[in-house]
C-alpha cells in the first residue's frame, strides 16, 4: 500500500512535469552582483519589459536591499513572458501574489522563469526571503494590462515599467 502511495506521488510529479505546468529552471546562468549595474543586461536603462522579435516579452528585474528595480513591472496579458532576474547583494525572494510565480534570487546566479498572465489585473510583488532589516518594506507591484494596450506602449518605448 505504501509503495503504491509513493508511486502515485512520483507519478503525479512526472505527469505535472510532462504536461508543462511550472517547471524548475531549465538551465543555469551566472551574473556578477558587483558589476550588474555597470555592464550587461541588468544595467538600469535595460531593466523592465522588452518585446522580443517573436512577440514574447522579456522582463528584466534586479533585487537589492530593499527594493526591486523596476519597482512596478508591467506585462501584457495572454502573452508568453520570460522573467530574468538576479540579486545585487543578498538572497531575495520573488513572489507575485495571486499567481504561482515564485522563485529565489541568489546573488551570483540568474533566475529565469517562463510565465504567462491570463487576465489583466494588479498584483503585489513582495520579497519572500529575509534580506535584512528592511525586508518587510520590500514590496513591488505588477500590472498586467491588455495585450493591445501593451503593444501601444511598447511602440513608444523600448523598456517598459509602470513606475510612477
Amino acid at each position, binding site marked *: 500500500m505504501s509503495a503504491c502511495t509513493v508511486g502515485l*506521488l512520483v507519478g503525479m510529479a512526472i505527469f505535472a512535469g510532462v504536461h508543462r505546468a511550472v517547471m524548475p529552471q531549465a538551465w543555469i546562468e551566472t551574473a556578477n552582483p558587483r558589476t550588474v549595474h555597470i555592464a550587461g543586461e541588468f544595467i538600469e536603462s535595460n531593466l523592465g519589459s522588452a518585446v522580443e522579435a517573436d512577440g514574447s516579452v522579456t522582463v528584466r528585474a534586479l533585487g537589492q536591499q530593499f527594493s526591486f528595480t523596476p519597482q512596478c513591472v508591467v506585462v501584457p496579458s495572454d502573452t508568453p513572458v520570460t522573467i530574468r532576474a538576479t540579486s545585487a547583494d543578498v538572497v531575495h525572494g520573488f513572489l507575485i501574489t495571486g499567481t504561482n510565480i515564485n522563485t529565489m534570487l541568489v546573488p551570483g546566479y540568474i533566475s529565469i522563469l517562463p510565465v504567462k498572465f491570463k487576465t489583466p489585473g494588479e498584483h503585489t510583488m513582495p520579497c519572500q526571503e529575509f534580506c535584512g532589516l528592511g525586508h518587510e518594506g520590500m514590496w513591488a507591484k505588477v500590472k498586467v494590462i491588455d495585450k493591445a494596450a501593451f503593444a501601444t506602449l511598447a511602440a513608444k518605448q523600448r523598456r517598459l515599467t509602470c513606475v510612477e
Partner: protein
Amino acid sequence: MLNSKRLVLAHFWLAFVVFGLALLLGEWQMFARSPLNPGLGNSDWYYRSVTAHGSAMGYVFPTLIAMGFGYAITELALKKPLIGRRWAWTGLAMVAVGAVVALIPVSLGLASVLYTFYPPMVGNPFYYIGVVLVVVGSWIWVALMSINMIVWKRENPDKPVPLAMFANVAGAYLWGWTAVGAAIEVLLLILPVALGFKDTIDAGLSRVFFSWTLHAIVYFWLMPTYIAYYTIFPRAIGGRLYSDAMGRIAFILFVVVSMPIGVHHLFADPQVGGGFKFIQSVFTAMVSLPTLVTIFTICASAEIASRLRGGRGPFGWVKALPWGNPMMLATTFSLLMLGFGGVGGLINMSYQLNTSIHNTQWITGHFHLIFAGAIVIMYFAIAYDLWPHLTGRILKTGRMMKAQLWLWFVGMIVTTFPWHYVGILGMPRRMAFYDYANPEIAKQAFSVSMSVVGGALLVVSAVLFFTILIRGHRAERADPGEYRFAQAVHEPVRLPAALNGFALWLTLMIGLTVVNYGYPIAQLLALGSSTSVPAVYVGAPQ
C-alpha cells in the same frame, strides 16, 4: 535501572527552560506583526527575536531532548550503566556554553541572520561559533550512543538489540551525518568570512550545504517522538507493539532516505540543476514510507490494546481505548497533527504545488504543525512518562496533564491553520510587520490575529507543563517500579543482521548522499570564485 538520573534530568531541564524562553519570544513575534499590536513595530528587535527563537527551538531544544532521552534509553533498554558518563556531561556543557555564546550576539543585534544563516549576510562570528559548539556537543552524544550499542552487542552476541536502543542509535547516526552539511557551511564558508579572513562567499553553494542539513534535521527532531510511539505508547495504554520488525524498518528508512532529499528546499533556487531537483523530489516521496508504516503499526497497536480491554466491532474498539491516559491523548493529538502536517508536506514536495506557497506563511504554519505540534507534544509525554523514574516521586496531576495536552493541541491548530491560510493568500514569511491598512493585506488581518490567540493558548499550556514538572519534584517519594518499554506481539528472538545493525544502512545513506549531492556540490565548487559574492555584514558598528 536508571543510574544517570541527574544527567538525564539536567538535559531535560535545560531543554525545557530554553523551550519556555523561546516560546515566549515566539508569541511576542506573533503579536508584534499582528494587527493587534498598537505600536509602530520595530524590525530590528523582531529579527533579533526570530533569530533567537529559531536557533533555540531548532538547534538547542530538540538536540537536548534527543540527548537526554538517548541516555535514558541506553540505560533502561540495555539494562546497564551508560558508558562514558563524563563525556556525556562534557557534551551537555558544550551545548549549554554554545547556546549562550550564540545567543549573546543575537540579543545584541549583531547576528540577525535567522537560524538558517542566509549568506552572503554574515553576522558576528560568535553566533556561528556557538552553533558549532552545540553541534559538536551533540556529536559526543552520537559517538556515545554508537559505542554503547556496539559494546552491548559484543557482550550479548545472541540477543537482538532492543528496539528502543536500535531506534535511538538510528537517530544518532542520522543526526551525525545530517549535521555535516551545515557544519561544512559554517566552518568552511561562513566562519572564514565572519572572522575576516575572506570577504566573499558563494551563496548558492552555501544554500546547497545547508539544505543537506535542513530537511533531515526535522527527522532528527522527530526521532524521540517516533521512539515514544513504538516503545512507550503501546505499553502505556496496556497493549503490545504490533510489529517489532516494522519499527526497525521504519527507522532504517529514515536513516537511508531522509538525508539526500534536502534540495526540495531549493526547488526555486537558480543554482541547482532541474535533474537533481527531480531525483530529490522522488526520494522526498520515499520518506513518506516510514511515516505510513508507523501510522499503520501504531494504529494496529492501539487496536490490540483496545481488544485486550474488551473493545469490539470494526470501529467500536476506538471507544474502548483508555482516553483518560495522557500518553493515549498525546499520541492521538500527535498523529492528528502529523496527518494534517503531512498532507501539507505533500504539497511542499511537489514542485508545481510548491510554487504557490513557497516561502509564504504556509511554510511557517507547516513546520510549526509538524515540529511544535506533532513532535513537541510527544516530548511532553516522554517527560511525563520518565519523570517518576527520574525523580523517584509520583507525578499525580492527571487532570492537569490532560488540560495541558488539550491546550497544546487546540492552541497549535488555532495557530497554524490560519497561518496556512494566509500563506495561500500570498503572505510572505519573515516580515517584521505588515500594513493592514492596505486592502489586500486587510483580508489577512483576522487570520493573523487568530494565530496570536492560538499562541496565547500555547503559552498557557507551557505554564501548566512547567507546573506539573515542578510539582513532580516536590511530590511524595514512591518507587515507580522497573521501567518497561513496550513489548511486541512477537518479541524478536533472532534477527537478520540487517535489522540488528547499521553497517548496510549507513553505507546506503552515504552512497545516496554522494549520488544526490556529489555532482551539484562539485559543479558549484568548480565555478569557484566566479560565483563568490561580496559578504554583506550585518550588525555593523553603529
